[in-house]
């Protein structure tokens, strides 16, 4: 794809989902891509099975999350079905000490980074704003404000530079976020300071009800070179291409060459969140077309063609998914809300007289109910 000759940018390029780099096609066949394939030369059948397992587990977490929301156990859920390929593929490229800054939809990234079952549901249940300690899995608390985390990733990368290490920070955001000032400022800062950061734009075609054409009249990956940042536009439903592209991007950043940008063209199969009704703004045919590009089915076909998708493997993955699904469900159902006074926790790191007074008053108010209970009122 040509991105430099922009005197006559073509609108249709923005929505072209075929003009992307890939290594596995919709039928599960390996295809050649000299740019990408050298980055995954080591990925053998066992590794491919691992990617399949990851994606299947992520889909199971997602399925469980939607079910729990429908059953009233979660307040909201942001489904990721269809995006398992880009999430798992890019996240598997990280080194453990790299640092990811995800959006709220990166369930697969959190899973690969080591999130525990409760980590997927406690925040959506409304018990906490976040669960894991970001430093335990080197992954920031998922961001709700669109695109804000892109700047955090760049700042973190600037810290890496000052510390003189070879870690990399990565920011995940969607096609809608590409319209935000923060994302554009993030690319300027990253480029100007040559920060070791990777931008992963998950173009899932829809920002709630707004199609990508409202955000972009030219491929989003085409913006990065304008900031002086090299980019790739890949098939986000191809886990192998996602792994390869992320390895390229991480290597670029890690070796001191500055930021890199990936646009992963994919599709959000479900609603934006469980509050959304996508039937109001997109047609069935479009969804059906994307079903045929399913990232999990594609790897299954590839594994079958290599005689690496036997009954035992399939049953083992299914059992693994069942265990994880059950654990996610148990974490949601077993959640225990903090004591009411806990709403005051962690607003400040150091004592704050104003809040201390409010906390004291609220504690006294709460204790009144305890006194009532004691005398049986």
């Amino acid at each position, binding site marked *: 794809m040509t991105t430099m000759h922009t005197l006559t940018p073509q609108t249709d390029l923005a929505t072209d989902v075929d003009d992307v780099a890939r290594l596995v096609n919709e039928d599960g066949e390996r295809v050649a891509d000299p740019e990408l394939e050298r980055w995954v030369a080591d990925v053998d059948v066992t590794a491919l099975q691992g990617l399949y397992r990851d994606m299947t587990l992520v889909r199971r977490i997602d399925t469980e999350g939607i079910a729990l929301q429908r059953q009233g156990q979660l307040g909201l859920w942001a489904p990721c079905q269809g995006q398992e390929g880009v999430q798992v593929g890019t996240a598997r490229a990280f080194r453990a000490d790299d*640092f990811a*800054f995800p959006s709220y939809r990166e369930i697969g990234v959190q899973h690969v980074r080591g999130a525990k079952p409760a980590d997927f549901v406690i925040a959506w249940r409304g018990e*906490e*704003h*976040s669960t894991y*300690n*970001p*430093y335990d899995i080197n992954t*920031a*608390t998922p961001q709700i*404000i669109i695109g*804000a985390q*892109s*700047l*955090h*990733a*760049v*700042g*973190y*990368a*600037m*810290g*890496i*530079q*000052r*510390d003189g290490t070879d870690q990399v*920070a990565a920011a995940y955001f969607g096609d809608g976020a590409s319209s935000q*000032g*923060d994302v554009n*400022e*993030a690319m*300027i*800062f990253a480029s*100007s300071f040559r920060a070791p950061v990777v931008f992963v734009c998950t173009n899932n075609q829809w920002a709630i009800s707004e199609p990508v054409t409202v955000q972009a009249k030219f491929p989003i990956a085409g913006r990065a070179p304008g900031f002086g940042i090299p980019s790739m536009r890949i098939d986000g439903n191809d886990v192998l291409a996602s792994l390869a592209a992320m390895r390229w991007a991480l290597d670029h950043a890690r070796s001191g060459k500055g930021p890199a940008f990936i646009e992963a063209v994919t599709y959000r199969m479900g609603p934006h969140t469980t509050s959304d009704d996508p039937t109001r703004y997109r047609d069935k045919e479009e969804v059906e077309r994307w079903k045929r590009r399913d990232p999990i089915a594609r790897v299954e076909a590839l594994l079958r063609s290599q005689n690496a998708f036997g009954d035992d493997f399939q049953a083992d993955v299914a059992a693994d998914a069942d265990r994880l699904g059950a654990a996610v469900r148990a974490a949601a159902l077993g959640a225990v809300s903090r004591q009411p006074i806990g709403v005051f*926790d*962690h*607003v*400040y*790191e*150091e004592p*704050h*007289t*104003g*809040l201390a*007074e409010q906390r004291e008053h609220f504690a006294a108010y709460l204790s009144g109910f305890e006194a009532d209970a004691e005398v049986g009122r």
Partner: protein
Amino acid sequence: MTQLTMAKAINEGLRRAMVDDDKVLVMGEDIGKLGGVFRITDGLLDEFGAQRVVDTPLAEAGIMGTAVGLAFRGYRPVVEIQFDGFVYPAFDQIVCQVAKLHYRTRGNVKMPITIRIPWAGGVGAAEHHSESPEAYFVHTSGLRVVAVSNPQDAYVMLRQAIASDDPVVFFEPKRLYHSKGEVDLGADLADAPPMGLARIAREGSDVTLLTYGSQVAVAMDAATAAEDEGISIEVIDLRSISPVDYRTVTASVRKTGRVVVTHEAAREAGVGAELIASVTEKCFNYLEAAPVRITGHDIPYPPAKLEKHHLPDLDRILDGVDRVLDRPNSMSGVIEP
């Protein structure tokens, strides 16, 4: 003790904080070779290098958002917002990220960011260069908000702000940058009054005059003028406007029974409104008169040639004092709704 301008005191505060802790870095527009548009960061680039004195692209949200990332990584960024009216593009990052990340992550991620804002009017500046946005930040839980009024406080409180593990919005009155005062550069921070403590700038017995930052000098002049008329005004420099040191404030109000608040910012839902609401709740039975606010008008900041009509001056403050003392004043005979 050394005679320093407030600008130099802040410069010294930054320099010493950077010497003490190599995780402290300063960032903002024009703060490197130029030394900042007010020269507050003068000389820091030469002393600490470009890794710690970061000339940024011209993008306030970018500056604030990358500061968040640096704090995530364990740094203590000191951000310079070039002028008060330029903080709004960074507002989302301040109120949604800087203020809330500690809470959102249950204390796992600290945001020890100091946001320096050259602030308020009285210097004949262009549009958007003289604003008083403090109430927006006071209203945001998770932030601390301070406003300095003299070189000594500027030096000490800046170092305290940088040392704090909480984010601090640090307002520096532009019109006081060149005012001089004694600064104890050798003072041990551990012995200094905490950042959240108010200062009784002048003792008095008839009226409590609450103010902060740019208005402290005006309030002091008003108190001196009132003395000629036999009125004793206690001036309290709040220093911290979130949290407010209500222990000091209420002790004064209970003594005087009368309260006037003055600030440059507009009146509606301003810091003065909060002060009076809280003082009324805490001291209602001690009040001899309804508290009075003397503030900027509820207008966009006016053109420089008219700003003197917007900024509370000595006479408007004394008029407010007359009102709480029920002396003849601008409201005499006016029936309020």
